């Protein structure tokens, strides 16, 4: 399974980096733009603040809280020595006591995501010269394992099914929040363990956020991001739908943004920097006179990596010079405000393979219509 392979990768990476003991830390908050060090190292998705103590050539320990989550931790972790703890900092101190006394080299990952009070205490117990291991944990999370790719594929399927459900049930007169709740639970029922979902309707939008109490009506443009997680692997589906018969300007703007998307897709090549994707997309924008719209608040990024095990290759921006590698999964989206149509969402989840970026959806992105608005 993925967690086994990640753990073995981590151990060999620790040896290469001269790290004897690695403390991986995580909270109960699972951000889809972050790497969760404990999930990567053990396969356990935590409820609270937790730590995994890994040894390059020895036994590993998973320290968890709350006490009552012990059985779930044992069932999902590839680290078999699972210990429920009351005070995580004290437990980490005990777990690494002998390593520190023996002068072992200590590495740490995930500290920057921990609550300050706990992070302060943990820092006090670490020996001077400890090594930042966030990069090797991130690389372990990004391993192209069969299970990870299967999870990514399943997450995309769930997102597409959730979106089709949304198109079926949405109708004028429905609150955004009610629609979001229906889709959220539908997606959970399909097997997603989490979902980053944004949904905003408007006659002329300036952004996208979580569903509000606004009632959807005829003539609304509805922008949606559905981002389910399967086994900790998030995948994102950005879409735009219209309530009623869409105006020609909207059709043209969506078609234009699809051109922007394809420019980015074509630019995604293994060995090329991420920045090239954003540059090529911005060039298409500039050719239409929209160069000034290639910055906040008109857009945020041209896509991004998908945590919670790896966020590689990071945000798709002109400033990100990360080199694209085979197996990276991310989303390319020219999410964008355009002066005629407002804020629109176009894009696709992709995987990097030898020939470039392959789109993972079964139905290409287009301007969709709410089924019930046409009845």
């Amino acid at each position: 399974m993925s967690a086994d392979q990640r753990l073995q990768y981590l151990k060999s990476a620790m040896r290469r980096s001269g790290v004897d003991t690695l403390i991986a830390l995580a909270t109960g908050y699972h951000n889809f733009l972050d790497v969760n060090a404990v999930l990567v190292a053990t396969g356990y998705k935590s409820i609270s603040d937790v730590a995994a103590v890994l040894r390059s050539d020895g036994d590993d320990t998973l320290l968890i809280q709350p006490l009552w989550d012990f059985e779930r931790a044992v069932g999902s972790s590839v680290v078999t020595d699972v210990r429920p703890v009351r005070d995580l900092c004290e437990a980490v101190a005990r777990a690494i006591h002998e390593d520190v006394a023996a002068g072992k080299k200590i590495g740490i990952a995930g500290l920057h995501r921990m609550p300050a009070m706990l992070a302060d205490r943990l820092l006090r117990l670490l020996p001077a010269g400890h090594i930042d291991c966030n990069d090797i944990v991130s690389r372990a999370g990004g391993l192209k394992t069969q299970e990870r790719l299967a999870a990514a594929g399943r997450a995309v399927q769930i997102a597409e099914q959730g979106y089709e459900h949304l198109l079926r049930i949405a109708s004028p007169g429905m609150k955004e929040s009610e629609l979001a709740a229906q889709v959220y639970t539908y997606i959970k029922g399909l097997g997603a363990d989490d979902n980053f979902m944004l949904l905003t309707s408007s006659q002329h939008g300036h952004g996208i956020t979580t569903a509000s109490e606004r009632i959807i009506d005829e003539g609304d443009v509805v922008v949606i991001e559905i981002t389910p997680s399967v086994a900790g692997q998030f995948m994102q589906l950005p879409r735009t739908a219209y309530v009623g018969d869409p105006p020609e300007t909207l059709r043209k703007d969506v078609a234009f943004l699809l051109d922007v998307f394809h420019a980015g897709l074509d630019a995604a090549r293994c060995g090329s920097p991420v920045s090239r994707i954003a540059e090529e997309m911005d060039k298409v924008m500039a050719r239409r006179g929209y160069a000034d719209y290639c910055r906040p608040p008109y857009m945020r990024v041209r896509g991004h990596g998908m945590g919670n095990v790896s966020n590689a290759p990071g945000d798709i921006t002109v400033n990100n010079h990360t080199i694209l590698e085979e197996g990276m999964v991310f989303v390319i989206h020219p999410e964008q405000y355009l002066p005629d149509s407002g804020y629109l969402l176009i894009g696709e989840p992709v995987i990097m393979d030898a020939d470039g970026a392959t789109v993972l959806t079964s139905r290409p992105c287009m301007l969709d219509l709410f089924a019930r608005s046409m009845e």
Partner: protein
Amino acid sequence: MSVLHPVIVSGEHIWDRGRLPIDEFRARASDVIELMRGNQIGGLIIHGNAQQSDLITYLSNYIPRMRWAVALLDMTGALHLYVAGPTRDLHFLEPLTHAAGIKSFETLATDLPQWLATVQASGFGVGLAGYGSMRPDVKAALGRHVSWAALQQLDGGFDSLMARKRPREVRALARCCGQIQSELTDLKSRCGADVRGIPTAILETERRCLTSGGYHVSTLFSVDGGATLVPLVPSGIGTPSASRSAAYLAFRSQGYWAEGMTSIGPSLALDETVVECLDAALAIMTPGNSVKAIYEAIDEVRAGADWHPFTVDPVSQLGLSIRPCGIGDILLSDSIYSLKVGLAKDSVYSFGSAVAKPGLDGAQVMLRL
């Protein structure tokens, strides 16, 4: 109670000006300013994030759905919010709060030095609340402008203030309790004597809570007769293998959290013991009594049954967060507490819960399951 936190909280977040009018927030700010004055503090920096936002929400109504926010409060009561996230979306937050000038967190780098200079020129110190949950990278960003040693931590005073519930807070909590009572009662009736459908039933409970104006809904349930409780994460759920189950529901609306839990399935003798434990605990839920006394009252009637690991901290204070009480805590008259009792005996498990406001004439029960 910690339950799997979602990547983003996607339920309904509004500022209900009817139920929580502006004068409610002014009164709260006035109390906080009094607290600041008493500590020789002229300005307060308040931090909150998606997991722990009670201090910011208490003053502003705003709850970060993801990432974090920092608020600055001065002696005039002016509250300024700095929210992490895309500047593109800041305008969506304006209807959610009365705070003046919602800005991006990045803007704090330019605004904070000037605000600090103004506060310090008044001769007063600067206070900080919500440090405990701050991430080190957020701390580093703030640390470029403030000297941590010079900041006076005000969490203790803030907590005391928030522990005593104002009338509108009691009503908000009562609405949450009503939702939980209704949903868990309905869940029991939908499952009936056959708990094999509990995962589907739990999902339906979540859907109903979200479509009823819930901001955040957290559930746990059991597929092994109550021995363990698990979140609805499909990869971790087995097929229910026992004739009984248990469900836990935490529901947040208008910022306020309540929680409840119950056994599901055919009744057993141990259920009666749980009822007796709850009765005994509620009978002594009076202001000034201790959490330790509640433990002892339950211990006297649990008839040889063991505490279930899920309820080793049976008493929690409810409000803008759910805070488990320590054994030495004293019950307050204006506070609201949840009480969870889980017992285990001979591989049989039973749960019950209540929410109550301690009173001199006995606890005012707001939820009982």
